């Protein structure tokens, strides 16, 4: 998490936050009319951007995704749920680059997200899905606490709505964009001070594994608890008459969400290796 706050020292990273947020919002706003749940979520091809922004711009992409989603909410869905949308979209971009660095899916001596091998494409798919699930977990948990939307319905809709564009559109986008971003010296690892960039190592691996476990347990454990409370998946979740705000869902998904946040504070920094 150090880099999330250290990045604000760099003017280029601040600019990337603003540009990322503007891009995300500009792609979200035209699709606000393609509503899936009125006032909550809509069809979002823009969901391709957080993963791409996160892998290219790191913490600037994460802040940009969060702020861009908030700006998009100004055009028809601004409410208290926007707070969870802010955190959820932050995680949507943050989780991919953390897991890319720490999970060991790509070789340590070749961490560039250029997707030039099957291994890297597979790694991209894994981190994109986990990022989408992290976003779904945070937002669905928040709206379950507020008793506005059932967890299972919203969690499943957001998971699909985020993961599909990220997988289908994200891979070709990364392949096209990475060489240009690298050439312009805009990769976050090239901009930030080396001492502020986490590196692969024991702690990063532990953090990444914990992060992935908390996301999966929180979301799918929450689904199990939601089924027990009578909720259902997707739009069936609104028709089954389940209990919104059930304590089991709130606890399990809450543990997943809080665990996700705390695991991000564990990482290997260059100073740890000296």
């Amino acid at each position, binding site marked *: 998490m150090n880099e999330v706050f250290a990045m*604000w020292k760099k*003017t*280029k990273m*601040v*600019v*990337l*936050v*603003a*540009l990322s*947020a*503007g*891009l995300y*919002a*500009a792609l979200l*706003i*035209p699709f*606000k*009319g393609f*509503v899936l749940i*009125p*006032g909550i979520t809509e069809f979002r*091809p823009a969901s391709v951007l957080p993963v791409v922004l996160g892998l290219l711009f790191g913490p600037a992409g994460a*802040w*940009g995704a969060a*702020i*861009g989603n908030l*700006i998009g*909410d*100004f*055009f*028809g*869905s*601004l*409410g*208290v749920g*926007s707070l969870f949308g802010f955190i959820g979209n932050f995680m949507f971009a943050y989780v991919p680059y953390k897991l890319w660095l720490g999970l060991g899916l790509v070789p340590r001596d070749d961490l560039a997200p250029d997707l030039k091998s099957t291994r890297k494409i597979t790694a991209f798919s894994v981190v994109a899905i986990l990022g989408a699930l992290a976003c779904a977990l945070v937002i669905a948990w928040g709206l379950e*606490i*507020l*008793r*506005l939307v059932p967890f299972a319905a919203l969690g499943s809709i957001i998971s699909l709505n985020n993961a599909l564009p990220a997988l289908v559109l994200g891979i070709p*986008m990364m392949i*096209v*964009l990475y060489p*240009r*971003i690298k050439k*312009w*010296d*805009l990769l976050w690892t090239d901009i930030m001070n080396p001492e502020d960039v986490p590196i692969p190592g024991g702690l990063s691996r532990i953090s990444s594994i914990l992060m992935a476990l908390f996301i999966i347990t929180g979301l799918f454990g929450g689904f199990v*608890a939601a089924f*027990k*409370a009578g909720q259902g998946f997707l739009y069936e979740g*609104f*028709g089954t*008459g389940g*209990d919104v*705000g*059930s*304590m*089991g869902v*709130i606890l399990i998904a809450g543990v997943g969400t809080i665990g996700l946040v705390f695991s991000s504070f564990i990482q290997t920094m260059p100073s740890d290796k000296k």
Partner: protein
Amino acid sequence: MDMFLYIDRDSFVHRLDPRTKLLLLLISFILGLCIKSLTFLLGLLAVVLMYGAAGGVLANLRRIRVVLLMIALFSIAIWTISIPTEPRFLIFSLDGLKYGIQVALKTDLMIISGMIFLSATKIEEIAEGLVRLRMPYRAAFAFSTAIRLVPMIVATSFTIIQAQKSRGLDLDSGSVVQRIRRHVPLVVPAFVSVIRGTNIFAMALESKGFGYSDRRTTLLDLRMGGYDWLMIAGALLSASVVFLLSESVAYGATLVSGGF
């Protein structure tokens, strides 16, 4: 599409400090979430609409009328069907209808409050207000810059679309899905054209002293006036009275006693 939400007026609401307006927005969200009584929710909605009328910004609600209507219809339809308690008529239950209306009112209320806030507050005021509330300047700068960039990015995208159309790309025919798929290849050039300016943008900022000092002066001089404190006191007092009078105090108990 007109991206700008701010409506320029010289009204009492416009003259309030952005921090006051942020707090009023927050209080309306909290009350909207916590109140269960339909009477009080309607009363709160009426107060919010009067606040917007005092600022002369209700015209902006026309832009989101479809969203507000869809939220209301969706909530009422879904909850009327999905809550299976008696009394019922066919698949529709009275408890479900009441709950659906409640959720519709809550959601619409929050969206209307947010729209009124954005219609009566300039972006610079929002950013400066956030800085006065101890948000770091760089974060507030990124936020306000992003909002300003959205119309520029949309305009750039339209230019790219026109250029591709002149080369034979057909974006107007076919089903909705087909049209969306044809827009996808345009994301990359839009992305590249925006991000390409990062280095120059950063140099321009640093040439003007951005980040030179943490202590900044500002052109916008925000001061909390008498009316600001009056509005804040009035809102807090009203919220306290509403909590005491309405059924909503039970919300906390309901949260704790909710079933597994």
